[in-house]
């Protein structure tokens, strides 16, 4: 069983919103119709987005860190939004685990959005149907694109490669390895939704350097012991060769 998902590395995300604009551009241009905006150039622009980047400040000044947090549908393995849909417009694909909305069946009752603890679904105020991230299902299987382009739009756009895409059920995939080796976690595990998308935590790379590692132990100028032992700041053989 395949479960496609995004793995988002919070250690790498710089909060540039390239994934947001790229997502919007791709998904507003497809055959499913636009992601409608209201007052796009007005004082209070608002509209339908599949992906948003939020920013949080962690800690107390001066010990603070800024975390940029991209947020989209997590394509839960046990999605609470799907069984509540009265029409069957919301469904989870068996073949790849993507949670989708059939815009032609949706009656716009918004019940699925109430059933999503993450607020991942957005109601399109002009088309009057519920919308959400499709993992660019109209892109990742498009054989007319070069293989390298068959990825979600947000993944392609990320300049820092903070977004990985792949099958989290395949233990050898890059996403599975990233989750395994970098302590990937899911959001709100307390609800048992089993999200497919994972996040990689902020992490600092520390290196402990011991005193003796600062000195080359096999320095030939020091090894034979015939010459007077040079000081630490004296040149070694490496400085000449």
């Amino acid at each position, binding site marked *: 069983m395949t479960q496609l998902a995004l793995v988002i590395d919070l250690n790498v995300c710089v909060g540039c919103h390239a994934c*947001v604009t790229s997502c919007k551009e791709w998904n507003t241009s497809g055959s499913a119709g636009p992601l409608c905006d209201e*007052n796009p150039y*007005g*004082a*209070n*622009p*608002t*509209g339908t*987005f599949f992906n*948003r*980047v*939020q*920013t*949080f*400040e*962690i*800690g*107390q000044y001066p010990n603070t860190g*800024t*975390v940029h947090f991209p*947020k989209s549908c997590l394509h839960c393995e046990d999605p*609470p939004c799907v*069984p*509540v*849909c*009265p*029409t*069957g*417009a919301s469904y989870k694909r068996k073949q790849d685990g993507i949670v989708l909305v059939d815009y032609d*069946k*949706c*009656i*716009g*009752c*918004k*019940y699925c*959005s*109430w*059933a*999503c*603890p*993450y*607020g991942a*679904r*957005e*109601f399109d*105020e002009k*088309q*009057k*149907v519920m919308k959400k991230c499709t993992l660019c299902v109209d892109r990742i299987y498009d054989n007319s694109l070069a293989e390298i382009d068959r990825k979600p739009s947000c993944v392609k756009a990320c300049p820092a490669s903070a977004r990985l895409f792949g099958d989290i059920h395949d233990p050898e995939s890059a996403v599975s390895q990233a989750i395994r080796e970098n302590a990937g*976690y*899911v*959001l*709100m*595990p*307390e*609800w048992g939704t089993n999200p497919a998308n994972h*996040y990689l*935590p*902020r992490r600092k790379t520390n290196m402990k350097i011991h005193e003796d590692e600062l000195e080359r132990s096999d320095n030939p100028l020091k090894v034979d012991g015939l010459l007077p032992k040079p000081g630490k700041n004296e040149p070694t053989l490496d400085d000449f060769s």
Partner: protein
Amino acid sequence: MNPAFSVIFLTTLIGVGQGLLLALFTQQSYALFDLLPQQEARFYGWGALLALLFTVAGLIASFFHLGRPERAWRSAAQWRTSWLSREVIALPAFMGVLFLYGMTHLTGFDPVLLTLPSGLGIHATVMLGGIATVMAFALFVSTGMVYACMRFLQEWHSPLTVINFILLGGASGFTLAAFYAALVAPAQAGFFAGWALIITLLGLLGRGASLWRNARLKPKSTLQTAIGIKHPRIVQTAQGAMGGSFNTREFFHGKSESFLARVKVVFLLLAFAFPALLVVLDLSSPSTALLGCAFISQFVGLLAERWYFFAEARHPQNLYYRGVS
């Protein structure tokens, strides 16, 4: 949650309709066993049509909730998994039986369908009334479970939600039945008023219990679990949108805590205290006007109650929309 008036009117109006049918059939059942005098067929018939009127009004209100009302027929499809779908089926089914119940009374086509061993004949109206009663409860359970089934809306995820839908709908229906009887069959008004008082007080008990429970709920989700960062101090500085989004509009009522507290007092007074008082006064000195006021007060109070029911539910997605800098 941000209360939607379409759903507030849907749930309160059909609750009155269901409660009125339950009241009428309760009286008819008593009469079947000679505990109360059997009323004319017109009493039950027009009462059932009055109940139908309320359910039709509720159904119309529900359409205003839909973005695509022309596709509403599709919503009966997922009855295996969706309580909303079950409600969508249960409502017209109840309305259909209610209509038949009223029409069998009004047309006088009321054959004996079966005879009990005791020799008691079960007429078509009794059979239909029984089916309508079962359908009324099925609809109450479906409506309540639409909200009670969502586990992360902790304020709703409780058997009290379903119990309160039954009690509050029942109370308003019996109060309306008392008013209706006072107009057309004054001898029966006391019977309905007595039950209305009992169910109103039970409703107060149930709603009080859920208010007590909800005031003590500890949210399972925190900002720490929402973004997966374990630090006691996290401050949001950007929401990903400047002019608001569906997430900021749909899941928060936008009112202050003190406004909520006032609505709570208002609905406790209008839906429970005033109607109970007016019904007690009516029981001591019968008056149609008192019962009319009791019903209007209770219905307005239940509108406020339902508004509060939505507003008090704290959706965990609001954790992602706590502030901007």
